[in-house]
């Protein structure tokens, strides 16, 4: 994880400031490079939407887990070994045939790190933060999700300390899939609520 391999090209101002900051904090003993490495490694390889997808898949196949997940998201995540910063108060909201849920943070970019990883740029961007609470149908349409007029839309603004995750509906034609196969259908966008799980030709029985 040394920065040596970057020497060939010009460093950006942000890159230089960050390197300088890291150097100063290391020298003052406030951080260690291996601690920073560990955080980066975790969020690059371990902590991401696959975790949330596994929870969703389990809720699809195990009604008792589904019940626990909706009653106490934090505990249901902890059951799977997921938890920690930005996931201390996890609430799972379930889509139904009548209701579609989606999450946003208008004031910053709060997001359930332990089960979805770090948020994508669009989730943190002014257009999403500004528009999702006000014109969700238009935003969802831009994501390719056209909901029936009759579907009630519920937008959750994570303005306090709860972090939300959407439990999508299990698509038809997935009866043959096991938990891991089901988890493959559950993308990050499905758990943010800007998409719903799709069954492709290859997956459907």
């Amino acid at each position, binding site marked *: 994880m*040394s*920065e*040596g391999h970057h020497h060939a090209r010009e*460093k*950006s101002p*942000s*890159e*230089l*400031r*960050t*390197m*300088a*900051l890291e*150097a*100063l*904090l*290391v020298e*003052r003993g406030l*951080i*260690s*490079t*291996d*601690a920073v*490495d*560990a*955080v*980066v490694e*975790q969020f*690059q390889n371990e*902590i991401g939407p696959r975790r949330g997808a596994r929870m969703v898949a389990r809720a699809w196949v195990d009604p008792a887990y589904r019940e626990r997940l909706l009653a106490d998201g934090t*505990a249901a*995540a902890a059951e799977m070994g997921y938890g*920690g*910063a930005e996931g201390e*108060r996890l609430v799972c909201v379930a889509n139904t045939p009548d209701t579609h849920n989606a999450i946003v943070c*208008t*004031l910053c970019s709060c997001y359930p790190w332990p089960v979805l*990883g*770090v948020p*994508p*740029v*669009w989730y943190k*961007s*002014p*257009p999403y933060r*500004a*528009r999702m*609470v*006000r014109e*969700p149908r238009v*935003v969802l349409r831009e994501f390719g999700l056209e909901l029936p007029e009759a579907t009630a*839309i*519920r*937008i*959750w*603004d994570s*303005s*306090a*300390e*709860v972090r939300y995750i959407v439990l999508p509906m299990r698509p038809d034609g997935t009866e043959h899939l096991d938990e891991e196969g089901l988890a493959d259908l559950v993308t990050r966008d499905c758990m943010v609520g800007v998409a719903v799980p799709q069954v492709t030709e290859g997956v459907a029985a």
Partner: protein
Amino acid sequence: MDGIHDMGGMQGFGAVAPEPGEPAFHERWEGRVFGMSLTLWATGGPIGGMRSQLERIQPGRYLASSYYERWEHALEEMLAERGVLAPADVDRRIEGLRAGGRVPERSDPAMVEAVLADMQPRPPAEPEGGHRFAAGQPVRVRRISTAVHNRCPRYVRGVSGVVERLLAPDWLPENEDLGEQRRAPCYTVSFAASDLWPDDGADHTVLVDLWETYLEEAG
């Protein structure tokens, strides 16, 4: 703090732009900024909350910066406010890097353990209680206008909604700025889009999490 960060309902920002196959971090330095922040938090280092700091970024700079550029700037500001290092120290160090200097490696197993522990499930939170409002009760959001950090979005101020769910008491966002430590019950409050933006013709529901101190009884 009525800053540019409070953008719920604002118009004119254009389209949302998703990026297929987006990585966790686009550039190495983004991960380093994130990692330094989490390390400092996990070890009780000399920084405060990121959210209150980000709000203080001048609006023009806020909009012109990327997410991790804002974090990096906020980190510097927090460290400077606590007397740890001045922006001039960073500038000087940049000169050193330009002249061929390196970021020194440092290993600290206890620190690694601390950051990893911070990514583990925690014991259940304190019991809930002490709520003044009940589920199903109509409430109105006060026109919160404190100059300190708060988490009461402008778009719900002065609007009535219905308590959807009681949430456990939590530390007030104002605590850090006011130098006290107080918790208050929280609520998920449900608002009809037609009450928030009556001219829009929208029919969805917006659910916002609010501290009890932001709410009053609605007639």
